[in-house]
C-alpha cells in the first residue's frame, strides 16, 4: 500500500447511506469537499470580520483574492459579466482550497476525481447556456455562426462549432483533473523511491538523496500548479461567460 501511487485516490465510505437504491454514502471525498467549503468560508469570514482601513495580513489576502477575480471577470466579460462574480469567485476559491488541501499529507484530493471537476464544468456550461438563452433568446445561436463565412459551408461550420462548444466542459474538467492526478502520482512515485532505495543499505540511503530532493522540488511545483489550475479554471469560466453575455460579435 505504501508504494501504490494510486491508493490515495480510492474512495472509502465513512457513513454508508442508501436512499431508494441510490448510494448516497458520505465518503472521504464528501468529507473533504465539506472541509474545503468550511476552510474557504471560515478564512473569508474571519479575515473580514473586523474590517479595518489598514488591513491585517489575512484581510489583505482576502481583498487580493476578491480584486484578482473581479479584475479577471471585468477584463474578459465586461461590467455586464460582474453579476457572475459570486459564481466565479466561489468556483475559484473551491478549486484553489481543494487543491491546497490535497497537498497536505494523508489528505484526499477532491479535484483529482474527474466527476467532481466535470460537475463544476457542467455547472459553468449550464450557466452559460441557460443565461445565454434567457438573455438573448434564439440570438444566442448566432454564437455558432461566424460572420464572413460563405453560405455553402455554413452548415458544416455550425456543426463543427457546436461540437467544439460541447467539448468545452470536457476539456475544462479533464485539464484540472489530469493535472492534479498526474502531480500527485509523480509526487508519490518519487517519495516511494526514497523509502525503497533507503531499504537497500548505506548505498541506497546515499542514492535516495536525489529522489528526496526531487520530492521537495515537486512539492513546491505542486503548490504552483494548485494555484495555476484554479486560475486557469476561473479564466476559462470568465471567457465562457463572456460568450453568454455578448454572443455573436
Amino acid at each position: 500500500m505504501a508504494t501504490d501511487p494510486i491508493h490515495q485516490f480510492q474512495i472509502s465510505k465513512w457513513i454508508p447511506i442508501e436512499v431508494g437504491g441510490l448510494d448516497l454514502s458520505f465518503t472521504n471525498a464528501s468529507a473533504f469537499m465539506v472541509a474545503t467549503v468550511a476552510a474557504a468560508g471560515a478564512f473569508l469570514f474571519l479575515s473580514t470580520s473586523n474590517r479595518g482601513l489598514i488591513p491585517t495580513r489575512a484581510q489583505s489576502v482576502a481583498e487580493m483574492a476578491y480584486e484578482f477575480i473581479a479584475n479577471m471577470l471585468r477584463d474578459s466579460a465586461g461590467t455586464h459579466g460582474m453579476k457572475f462574480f459570486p459564481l466565479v469567485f466561489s468556483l475559484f476559491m473551491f478549486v484553489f482550497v481543494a487543491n491546497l488541501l490535497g497537498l497536505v499529507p494523508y489528505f484526499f484530493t477532491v479535484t483529482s476525481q474527474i466527476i467532481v471537476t466535470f460537475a463544476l464544468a457542467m455547472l459553468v456550461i449550464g450557466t452559460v447556456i441557460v443565461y445565454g438563452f434567457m438573455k438573448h433568446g434564439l440570438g444566442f445561436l448566432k454564437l455558432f455562426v461566424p460572420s464572413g463565412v460563405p453560405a455553402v459551408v455554413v452548415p458544416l461550420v455550425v456543426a463543427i462549432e457546436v461540437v467544439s462548444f460541447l467539448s468545452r466542459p470536457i476539456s475544462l474538467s479533464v485539464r484540472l483533473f489530469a493535472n492534479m492526478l498526474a502531480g500527485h502520482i509523480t509526487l508519490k512515485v518519487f517519495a516511494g523511491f526514497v523509502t525503497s532505495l533507503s531499504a537497500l543499505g548505506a548505498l541506497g540511503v546515499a542514492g535516495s538523496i536525489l529522489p528526496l530532493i526531487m520530492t521537495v522540488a515537486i512539492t513546491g511545483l505542486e503548490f504552483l500548479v494548485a494555484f495555476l489550475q484554479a486560475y486557469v479554471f476561473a479564466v476559462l469560466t470568465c471567457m465562457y461567460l463572456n460568450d453568454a453575455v455578448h454572443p455573436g460579435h
Partner: protein
Amino acid sequence: MAEQNGPDDLEQRRRKLEDALAARQSASNGEGGAQNTKGGGFGNAFKLSGEFIGGVVVGIGLGWFFDQLLGTTPWGLIVFLLLGFAAGVLNVLRATGRVAEFGSAKPGNGGDDPQRK
C-alpha cells in the same frame, strides 16, 4: 495638524502606490509568462491533448446518441466522429491562438472592444 496638505499628501501617496503596484504587476506578469513557456511544456501537452480528445469524445458521444435515437447505425457515428475530429483540431488551434476566438469574426478583431470596456 495635516489638515491642509492632508488630502494632497494622501492623493500623492496613493498615486505612488498605484505606480508601484502597476510596475510590480507587469513584472510578475512577465515572470508568469516565462514560467509558462519554460516549465509549461508538460502543462501545454495536457491542455492541447485535452482540447483535442474533448472534441473527438463529444463527436463520438453525439454520434452514438443520434444513432440510438434514429436507428441510423453506423452513419451518425461516422459523421459525428469526423465532425468531432474537426472540432478537436479547431479547439487546439484556438487554444494556441491561431484561429479567431469563439464568436469573433476575424483574428485580432477589435469590434467587441467597446462592450468589453
